[in-house]
């Protein structure tokens, strides 16, 4: 208990400093990628988050409006210049999540939120800010620090007709709810012979932050991925964050929505019109010919940074944000493999038993004949995330490693 309280204290204390830090780093990152994007607009290298650059293979009803947006549009001058003329509105990733949540709460009175500090405090990363005053304390329920029990409560509420969105103040805390998530979220629909549905969304900030220490910088996808009956998606842009949030709430399956602590302050212009994304679809970030790079969440930006270098070196990588961590969109992935014949996976997940390991297995099983080289999987190291900044950087995959891996693959 003491550890939890301490942990929350730490998360809260670090929130503002951390997000500032994030913003800074993304300003610099994005400036670089944006400049490339600007130079090459109209050709191949435009960073888009809506996936419409995909080569016409996803005919499964994308409802999203076609709207070209910069995935990392945090550059203030462009933003200021564009607000009046362009359609849509600009917001930060956490605001996009809130917008999606709010729209669904408006649409369906059975949608409710529960978790630590989601109500009066507005959420540790402000995803639920302003919702408690609007919808009341019961619909936006501040729970005691009792992860296993309030998650179980969400499941019981879902079984009896509600659609709870359960927030883990930090995704890592949900390890304390692992029993409820695995036994009841994942398996209860099956054990009940299909009688009870568990339409919950479990979401929260996760991933490796900046010097938050091991417990607050977990890579939980690997832990959750083998639970039967659960879907997992990871958002990476304001556009897909909102669309996935709405899709997750509407799904009758339990969905774990991974948000990344370092991405909450990404800014992007998104459509004014309502849109819902497809939970099962991957997102084409950058079409290319030479190598398929599969990634998700924050590593998408490390990949795009590397892509810039690679393009300068004459490579034409195809970047796919797999987005759906379980199940994989084998169609989008397969088509890319059939085109490039080379696969690089870049993930922040643990190396052992991680998403990349599963993805490698799935590609080998399904598309082995199309591969011209062994799949390379860059995962973070199998170490507890270190506190020291230097060690932390060496734990997760850095852009330079991605460049080297592509060069090796394309030899």
């Amino acid at each position, binding site marked *: 208990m003491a550890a939890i309280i301490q942990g929350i204290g730490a998360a809260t204390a670090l929130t503002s400093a951390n997000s500032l830090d994030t913003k800074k780093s993304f300003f610099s990152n994005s400036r670089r990628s944006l400049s490339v994007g600007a130079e090459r607009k109209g050709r191949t290298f435009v960073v888009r988050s809506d996936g419409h650059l995909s080569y016409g293979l996803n005919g499964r009803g994308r409802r999203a409006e076609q709207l070209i947006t910069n995935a990392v549009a945090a550059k203030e001058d462009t933003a200021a210049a564009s607000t009046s003329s362009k359609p849509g509105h600009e917001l930060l990733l956490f605001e996009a999540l809130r917008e999606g949540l709010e729209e669904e709460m408006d649409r369906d009175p059975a949608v409710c939120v529960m978790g630590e500090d989601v109500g009066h405090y507005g959420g540790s990363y402000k995803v639920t800010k302003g919702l408690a005053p609007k919808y009341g304390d019961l619909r936006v329920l501040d729970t005691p620090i009792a992860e296993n029990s309030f998650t179980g409560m969400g499941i019981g509420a879902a079984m009896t007709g509600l659609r709870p969105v359960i927030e883990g103040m930090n995704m890592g805390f949900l390890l304390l709810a692992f029993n409820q998530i695995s036994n009841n979220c994942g398996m209860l629909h099956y054990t009940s012979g299909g009688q*009870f549905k568990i339409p919950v969304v479990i979401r929260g900030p996760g991933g490796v932050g900046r010097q938050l220490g091991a417990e607050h910088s977990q890579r939980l996808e690997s832990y959750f991925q083998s639970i039967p009956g659960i879907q997992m998606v990871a958002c990476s842009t304001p556009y897909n964050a909102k669309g996935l949030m709405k899709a997750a709430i509407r799904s009758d399956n339990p969905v774990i929505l991974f948000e990344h602590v370092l991405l909450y302050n990404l800014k992007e212009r998104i459509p004014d019109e309502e849109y819902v994304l497809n939970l099962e679809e991957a997102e084409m970030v950058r079409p290319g010919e030479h190598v398929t790079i599969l990634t998700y969440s924050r590593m998408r930006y490390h990949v795009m940074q590397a892509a810039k270098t690679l393009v300068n070196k004459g490579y034409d990588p195809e970047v796919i944000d797999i987005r759906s961590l379980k199940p994989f969109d084998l169609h989008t992935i397969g088509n890319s493999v059939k085109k490039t014949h080379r696969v690089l996976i870049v993930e922040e997940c643990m190396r052992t038993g991680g998403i990349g390991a599963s993805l490698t297995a799935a590609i080998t099983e399904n598309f082995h004949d199309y591969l011209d080289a062994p799949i390379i999987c860059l995962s973070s190291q199998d170490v507890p995330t270190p506190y020291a900044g230097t060690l932390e950087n060496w734990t997760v995959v850095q852009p330079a490693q991605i460049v080297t891996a592509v060069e090796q693959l394309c030899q």
Partner: protein
Amino acid sequence: MATSFSATKVLQPLPLNSTRSAEKPLLCQSLKGSSSFLGSSSHKLSLKKTFYPHQSQRRSNNAVVAVSDVVKEKKSKSKSSSSNLLITKEEGLVLYEDMVLGRAFEDMCAQMYYRAVSTGFIKLLKKEDSVVSTYRDHVHALSKGVPARQVMSELFGKTTGCCRGQGGSMHMFSKEHNVLGGFAFIGEGIPVATGAAFTSKYRREVLKEADCDHVTLAFFGDGTCNNGQFYECLNMAVLWKLPIIFVVENNLWAIGMSHLRSTSDPEIWKKGPAFGMPGVHVDGMDVLKVREVAMEAVGRARRGEGPTLVECETYRFRGHSLADPDELRDPAEKNHYATRDPITALKKYMFENNLVNEAELKAIDKKIDELVEESVEFADASPVPARNQLLENVFADPRGFGIGPDGRYRCEDPKFTEGTAQV
């Protein structure tokens, strides 16, 4: 064993004696308005002797008492009705039939349940009310109205089972009868029950369904009361005044672990007042006493006055499971409880009060024997699940299996319908 522990487990006089007695009236007052559970603490000593036979040598300590709620036999005083009887003939027959059903069913399965508790509580419920049970859930399902043949078929792993053979003995569910499980890990059902109670409140207050007065019963054992989920949910239930009743079936043994060796304060009902809800202790071998407590608690919950913790003293007549050699429990202890068969006690009460005659009960016995017999035949004759059932119900929305290499949803593949797809 008990003796060696008793020396170290004597209740310490509370250092806060004086402040505690100052607090007591406050707590009592807050509960008095809505509850008649408040018994006098003078029941305490006798309670201890009978309920915890191992620890009669324990020193009693009145300072610890916050609320003692042994149900009083003389409750009729407060009743305005002309009859002193606790039940009508019809009610008696319903209770009797349900308990006989439970016994016949469990005899068939070589298990031993707590019929009086299940019957005493669940027979008071409406269909819309929810029940959450543990791994010992057959009888709760039966009491709640799930047909015996469906429960039996589920035990047989047949498609006609209430969960199509996918749940089994420890995972009984019925959406129609609001049996929410069937939870095999200790304590994990309590949060789910709390969630169901939350839905009732939500429907009333958020969705403005003023007539939604549904309550939820959470059944669990004494071993569970050392698990965090129990305490976490007591706290949340009181915080939000949820319509839930926590029913502890205390049989003194968690497989081989004696309650007294595992629980610092073995009087579980006391944990209710500690969280600000009434705690009641009742003889779980007496269906009429259980029923009285249940009526009070269910009524409280329905009126929106919040949760209640009820500790029912029961006993397990057989081992924990077929694999349990049951060597640790004292034969004298077993005999003590064996003399207190709840069905015999109910019969006696009904005969003494001329509610029923022998023939009427015989007819029920016969009916139930036939019913259970028939349920076995039905289950036996029912088909085992075919392969095509394997991949059904993994996801409520089968798109959860994802998109295959051909661009179609994998669940559309005929191999999924056949159950032969590799997932």
